[in-house]
Structures are given as structure tokens and as C-alpha cells.
């Protein structure tokens, strides 16, 4: 008897505590930029950052990323197609950690619910965004040794001009 009254009393006291329930979706919660939600592919200076290295795909523990690499005439590599099956994704963020170019990033967005599971399969068009996402400033091709359109050999960061192998001078 006493324990029931005690319980009721505690419930009664809770009526005067501060409310913690968030009125989602009218009220949006704050999510930190590092929050691991919907995955995007970013761009830098208008160009796709993804170089189709397959590291995100191999890092993915549920194998939900598949892509195919291709190259433009200038030798710049990019994904011909890029697919994430979000119905399998566990939002672990390994892909972002593996990405050597900051191309693939997880965003603070979790509102991806669908009635049809098939709609959770995102293609490259669905993933690409216009800007650099969380990490501005890093352009992989500036530091890579590969010559691509607009950047010749020796024009990368910290690179000496190409050697003239025909010279006899030391």
C-alpha cells in the first residue's frame, strides 16, 4: 500500500520537472556537424572530389557501396556511377574515414524514411552536392603527382618541375 502511494508521489513530482520531449518534427533537434547521417559526395572548385579509389567500398562493413571508376580525356579519374544502398547502411562512418579526398561525408540529416525500400538506393546524382561539405580547401589533385587537365606535371603542391632526362648537367 505504502509503496503504491510512494510511486504515485514520484509520478506527481515529475509533473513539475522540465519537459525533455522534443516536439519533432515541428521542433528540429540540434545535430553536430560530425553527426553521422545521410551520406553525400562533395565537390571542390566545382569538380567532383571523388576519385573512385574504391576505399569507401572496401571499408564498408555491410558492403552497401558500389561504384565504377572511369577517366576523362585528361586523365582525371572519377566514378562513372556510384551507388549506396541506404537500406543496408549502418551509418558507421568508416567510408568517410577511409576517403583520402574528403569526397564522401556523412551529414547531420537522418530524415530518409521511405515506404518503399527500393527508394533507399541512392545513385551518384542523388549523392552529389554542390560544395565541399564539412571540409573546405582540400583538393586531392593539387597534391597528387598525376597530371590532369589544368594541372601539368610539376605543378602540384610541393613538386619540382619535371626533370629533363636528356640533359648531361648534374
Amino acid at each position, binding site marked *: 500500500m505504502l509503496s503504491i502511494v510512494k510511486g504515485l508521489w514520484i509520478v506527481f513530482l515529475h509533473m513539475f520537472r522540465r519537459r525533455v520531449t522534443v516536439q519533432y518534427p515541428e521542433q528540429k533537434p540540434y545535430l553536430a556537424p560530425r553527426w553521422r547521417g545521410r551520406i553525400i559526395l562533395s565537390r571542390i572548385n566545382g569538380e567532383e572530389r571523388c*576519385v*573512385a*579509389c*574504391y*576505399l569507401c*567500398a*572496401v571499408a*564498408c562493413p*555491410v*558492403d*552497401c*557501396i*558500389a*561504384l*565504377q*571508376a*572511369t*577517366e576523362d580525356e585528361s586523365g582525371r*579519374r572519377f566514378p562513372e556511377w556510384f*551507388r*549506396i*544502398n541506404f*537500406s*543496408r547502411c549502418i551509418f558507421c562512418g568508416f567510408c568517410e574515414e577511409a576517403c*583520402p*579526398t574528403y569526397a564522401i561525408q556523412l551529414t547531420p540529416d537522418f530524415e530518409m524514411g521511405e515506404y518503399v*525500400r*527500393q527508394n*533507399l*538506393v541512392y*545513385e551518384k546524382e542523388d549523392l552529389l552536392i554542390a560544395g565541399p561539405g564539412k571540409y573546405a580547401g582540400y583538393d*586531392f589533385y593539387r*597534391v*597528387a*603527382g*598525376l*597530371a590532369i587537365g589544368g594541372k601539368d*606535371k*610539376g605543378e*602540384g603542391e*610541393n*613538386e*619540382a*618541375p*619535371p*626533370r*629533363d*632526362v*636528356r640533359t648531361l648537367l*648534374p
Partner: protein
Amino acid sequence: MAKIIVNEREYEVRDGQNMLQAALSVGLDLPYFCWHPAMGSIGACRQCAVRLFRDANDTRGKLAMACMTPANDGTRISIDDAEARDFRASVIEWLMASHPHDCPVCDEGGECHLQDMTVMTGHNYRRYSGRKRTFRNQDLGPLVNHEMNRCIQCYRCVRFYRDYADGRDFDVFGIRNQVYYGRQFDGVLESEFSGNLVEICPTGVFTDKTLKGHYTRKWDLQTAPSVCVHCGVGCNTIPGERYGALRRIYNRYNGEVNGYFICDRGRFGYEFVNGARRLHHARVRTERGAEAAPADSDEALRLAATLLGKAKRVIGIGSPRASLEANFALRTLVGEGNFYAGVSEKEWRLARLALDIMQGSPAKAASLADVARADAALVRGEDVTQTAPMLALALRQSVRQAPLRKAAKLRIPDWDAAGVRNAVQEEKGPLYIASTFGTRLDDAAKRTYRAPPDDIARLGFAVAHALDASSPPVPVLPANARPLVGEIVDALTGAEEPVVLSGGCGSEAVLRAAANVAMALCRKGHPARLCLTAPECNSTGLALLGGEGLEPAFGAVTSGEADAVIILENDLYRRAGAAAVDAFLEEVGSVVVIDHTDGETAARAGVVLPAATFAESDGVFVNNEGRAQRFYSVMTPRGDVRESWRWLRDLALAAGRADVEAWATVEDVDRALAAAMPIFAPLPEIAPPAGFRIAGQRIARQPGRYSGRTAITANVSVHETPPPEDTDSPLVFSMEGYQGQPPSALIPRFWAPGWNSVQALNKFQEEIGGPLRGGDPGRRLVEPAEDAAADYFADVPRHGEPSAGNYLFVPAHHIFGSEELSALAPGIARLAPRPYAGLSPDDARGASLAEANEVEVSVGGWSGRLPVRIIDTLPPGMVALPVGFAGRGPLELPAWGELRNPRDGRGQAQ
């Protein structure tokens, strides 16, 4: 055996190795770059530094390069020594100072020896803040890509290209930190083995350009053990598949066949599998002359069965590029008497003769490894670089054997590459080449002899007679051949392991003469080996199955006996003259073609059934030495494609045949074949059976890191399908299976913990450079007869004098273009020469023809105009015509024909 002590533990190793080899052989990890098991040590990269102790009491020791330290009895080293460890780490750090930040866009990434070694030594951060040196790349042609920034100057590429493969157009240039590997100018690499640079290069300087077009990492490739289909040597390969397309071919080590290397035709010829001419669906033509229409497989099968059911007599035409099982299934379906080998009459006679020689001669057949080990070689008839390229590479190693023995006398171990080179300089062992005109191997030969096939044969008979007087004599020998006979005899009798190698060059006499030479050597107590080339991947297998050639097949139709034909994986227009094939296909009522690639024959068929290529099927090929080798499907076929033997079984079942009811898997066919023909009795035992399991698991075709399983087909359906069933082999189309080392016949890829690159092979061998663990795969079916009482061939050909206005047309083979399937690969097609008529300079002058002029050619019922190519090494009176171009050339070469300069309107006598 020597007892060595590594890290204070004793190991037993074979004598005559170096410490790096020995350490790797016993399973220890030691980083290295410049050493390669096939090319020896030069001690250049300083990466394999270890601490070497004088004896058990020596506690200080000294740093030494393991690859330059002989593994003598009692040699004591420490790999774990702290100073040696630091030394190795700093070497890597120097190498990486200028290495570009390329791994994500580098095709080597994930299977990079430099990555592996960097991880192994523990270097992980670039401390050097200076600028990285850069280089411009070269365009090396359609097969190999060049990215010079990534180079770590290990010299492996030049050592392979120049020292091992004797290439001349690639070298190292420059000094200090601008050492550059490339050609003098941009251009296609000339060596037929340039593709091996892809595997030789420890990093991504040389990568596969055909792979670049559909790039996939090693960890994403579904692979299975396979056998090359582009010539008769039967090199072992590892094809890789991704998203339903074949992506690349890598070498699969087999100590007895292709050690560490394969040729460019084998490596880059695979793209026919993905080609536009692949057949994916059945096609039927209900009425003669009507358009062929696509059909589903049941309908096509029903129609084919009806056509065959109505026929009086059905004949089957087999194929040297189809597996044993497919050919046997056809033979079973049509009956032994109705089975014809689908090769030209001349080729069939040669193949049967080669087989008779191999079975009757006391000389054992030589494997590729035997040829490379030989210390004297006589090559007859063919330009092996063009017809069986890996044989040429083996012969290039054989000329090093005699000098190597000399170096061994100076107590220089064979792995000391620089020491051996200094000792022997430019010296070469005896290699004699008799051919119709200059070959790509001539630079390695001691002496060459160029003559028409009959004279090549006569030289052989003369050598045999000089060796053993009981063999038939040659009455008159051309003056330029006489001094050669004695020299060749001396070289062959002076050698410990002589080998006689012969290609047909279209002449039976050449083969017979080679057989006589080998037999004479054996009778005189010199255990010679005999190596006869085979034109296609299963030519020998087809010859073992027996039957008759194509002409009797045509005859059976012309006589009205047969009115239906099943053509298995064969384009008849490449086998016989167009007019004959036209007439044959016209006359025979019903034509059923089973093939994987569309061609002229398939275009005329009533029913076309889409067959699987080597990449989608399981089966056995028999190579030129008679070695039966099993290949496994790498991928599941698209569309309605089925393996040829399954189509044939289904046809037989539709016809109500009971004997094939039990044929559920390829093993059932093998068992039936083994029961039907005793020569094939070992067939079921050449590889583990389909029920073979390791720890209850099948062998995984996909590596453990295979990615994208739940996304690859998600665009079609988000619900994943189970992996395809494989009832034919112990392999599985999944990553869920055994990932360790399977038996040697089932190795799907070379990969070991810490060794992602092809160098992981070290872990799969019993000892470095030796056989794979458990023995090399494949089994030789053809062995020489025990008594070997066979007689010498007696029919010495007469010296053929050309009649006026007549030229002897001889075949000119080309590595790129002469072979049917590889010629469909775009990269190979780009390198294939255009059709031409090769003339000697004298004949060209006589007919007032210059290079690229048009000339009218008429030979063997074929005539046409071809541009002239002047071949300096061609003897006068002969014309060389490339083989296999356009498929409609004259086929039965050598043959006599005529040549006319269309501008002066008169025939040219010589």
C-alpha cells in the same frame, strides 16, 4: 641441405640459395625490391638488410644485404635486429621521399609491393619537407601505361626487359635522382613480353592500360584458376571479373609451364569475352534465306532437335579452341564415325603426326621449364615468338644455361645476376634456328638457316644422319647448310640437356626431321627432349580424341550422306577456303552452330546457340606437351549462354539419348571420357573433385575484402539474390569460403597476409622458384612409349626447285592478329599488322616493286591484291603471307603460287 640460423632459430634450406630466398622460403617476412626470383639479386635497393653474424660467439655482427649473402651451412642472421630494422625503415623513407601522393588514383593500389613493404617496415609519415621530383610520362602503346613519378628506381623493369626478355627499345636513362626508365622516344614497346612489366614493377609505374579502361581493384576481382586460350602452350592464368565483365588477366605461376611470366597476347587478349561480337542469346532461322531472329533457349533447342531429328546423318565438327569436354560431348552426340576435327586438312595431319611422334619417340616432351633449362636448342620451322611466345622466352633463358655453367665453375652462384653477367659477358649458349625467314628470336641464336620448309627438313634429316648413321641420309644438301650440320651435331652432343623444338610451318617433313634428330640423340645416349608446338589451346586434346579432318566432313555432305551438321566453337571460314565452306554450308540442310563469338559461319546457321568462353566454363585443355590442365569458370554467363557441353547434352537429351542422362556436371563428362578412351583415364584426378572442401568450405572466388555485395545489383532490386550455384567445381562464387591456401590446381589468386601484391606467390611455393605447394597442377597424358622401338622417318623430301613464275608462299605468323580470339581485343587489334605480301629484296627489285606497292597474288585458289612488304631475311623465290588476317586468306600454306605486278601487266619470272 644447409642449416641456417635466423633470429636464433634453425632452419633447413636447399643449398645454393641466398639468405633472402632462404628466409622467404621458410616463411619469414623480409622486405625487398630489386631481387626477383627469376632474375636473381643485384643488391641495389638495400631493403633486405639484416645483421649477419660470423658464428654463435659473434654478438656484434654486421649489417649485410640478405640477397647477396649465400645461405651456406651455419650462416647466422638476425632479421629482428633493431639496427637492421632501423636501416630498412630509413631506406623506405628515402624511397618514399619523392613518391607521389597517388595511391587513390594509382592502379597498383591494393596490390602494391611498395605499399606492402612500407607497411612491413613501419614507415608511415613523410618527414622530408623538400619538393618531390617529377617526370614526364611516355606513351608506350595501347597495352602498358607509364607513370614515371611513382618510380623508386629498383631497376627491375630494365632487368626484366633487357636482361631477361632481351628487349632493346627500353632502358634506363639519366643520373642521380633523375634516373628515368623508358624508351628513347614515345612509342609502342617492341617486346612481346612487355605486359610483364605490370607485375614486375613493385609500384605503379607500369600498369595495365586495358584494365584502366574498366578499372577494378584486386580486392574486388572475382578470380579463379584458368588456362590461356591464345596459343598451344597453355600458360596458367588468373582472369579477374567484376560486374559481369572480364577485367584483366594475371599470370598464375606454374613451375613446369609458365613460371613468373606470360606473353602480351595472353595478358591482353581477354577482351573478346566482353566484345561486341559475343553471342548472348540464341538465334534461329526458320526458313532458308530468312532473317535470323533471336529466340529463347528452349525454342532454339527444340528447333535444333527437330532439325537434327529429321536428318539422315548428322555430322559434328569439333574445335581446337573448345574444351575436351565440349568436343567429347559432340563426339558422343553424333557418334564416333561422324565426328570431325574442325581444322584444315594440313593442320590435322600435322597435329596427328605430332602426336604420333610424341607417343613413338624415345625423347620426352619438353615442358616450358625444360626448354628454359636446356643448354642447347635446335629450333626448326617456326617463329616461335609469334606462334608460342612463351617458348621463345624460355629459349632466351636456355641460351644462358651454358654460360651459367661456366660462371658456376668460377664459383659464382646463379642468383648473383651482376656477377654472372660480368663473368659471361655477351656469351651465349648454342641455339640454332632454321626457319623460312628471319624470326624475332634470331638475335639470341648462334647461327640461323633460312630456307624453304623442305630444305629445313633436309637439314634436320642430315643432322639426324650425322648423329646416327642408321637414320636416312640426305643425298644433296645446299651449300650453306653443309657446315651447319657438323656444328649443330657438336652442340647437341656436347650439351647435357639438349632440346629439339619444332613448329610445323605447314610441313610434315619438318616435324619428321625434328623427330629423327631427337630420336638419334636419344639412341646415342644424349637424353634429348622434344618440343613440338601446337597451333591452338586444345589442338593436342583434339588430336587425342581422334577422328578425321575437315575435308572428309565436306565430302560426307557432298556425297549426300550427311544433311545436318553441328559446328562447335568454330568459324569454318578460318579453316578452309571460302568457296569450299560456302558450298558446304549451302549443301548441308541444317546447320547448328554452338559458339561464343559471332562469325561468318554463325551468320549462315539455322540455329545458333550461345556458348560460354573459357571465362564462363569449366573444362580441360591439353597443351602442346600433352599436359592436361583444368580451367575454372571465373564468372557466371550473361543471357542464355551455356557451356558448350551442356548445349550438346541438352540436344542429346532432346533426341532421347539415355547415355547422357547422368551428365549433370563437367566431372560426369570427364568420367565418361576417361571410361571411353584410356588415354584420358587420369582426367578425373588432375584436380580435386567438386566435392572437395577445406574445413567444410568451398574455395572462395572472391577475396575476403570483396566490396559492394549489397549495392551492386541494388539498382535492379534492393533484395539481394543468393550467389549463383556452382556444381562443377569446389569453388564458390562468393567471398564466403576458404580464403587460405588451397591445393595448387585451385589457387584463385596469390594473396597472403601482409603480401597484397603478386609477390605473395612466395608463400605459395614449396621453395622460392620451385613448384607450388603440393606440386604444380596439370598432368601429362602423353608419354613416350616404353620400348620406343619406332623407326626413323625415311621420307626425306627432295630439294624443290621453283618453276618459272612460281613462288613458294609461306605463312608469316604474328603474335598480334594471327590468333582468332585475341585479335578481337581492341588493344591487340591496334597492334596487328595489315595484310601484306612479304617479298625478298631481290624479288621485289626483279618485279620492280617497292615497299607498299600493290601486288597481285594468286595462290591455292585465292587471289587478291596486297601491299608489298620487303623482308630482308626472306630467301628469293618465297613470299610470306600473314596468317589469320581477315580470315579469308589462302590457308594451306606453304603452297606454290603466282605473283604479278599489276602495273606492268606481265608475270614475273625470277
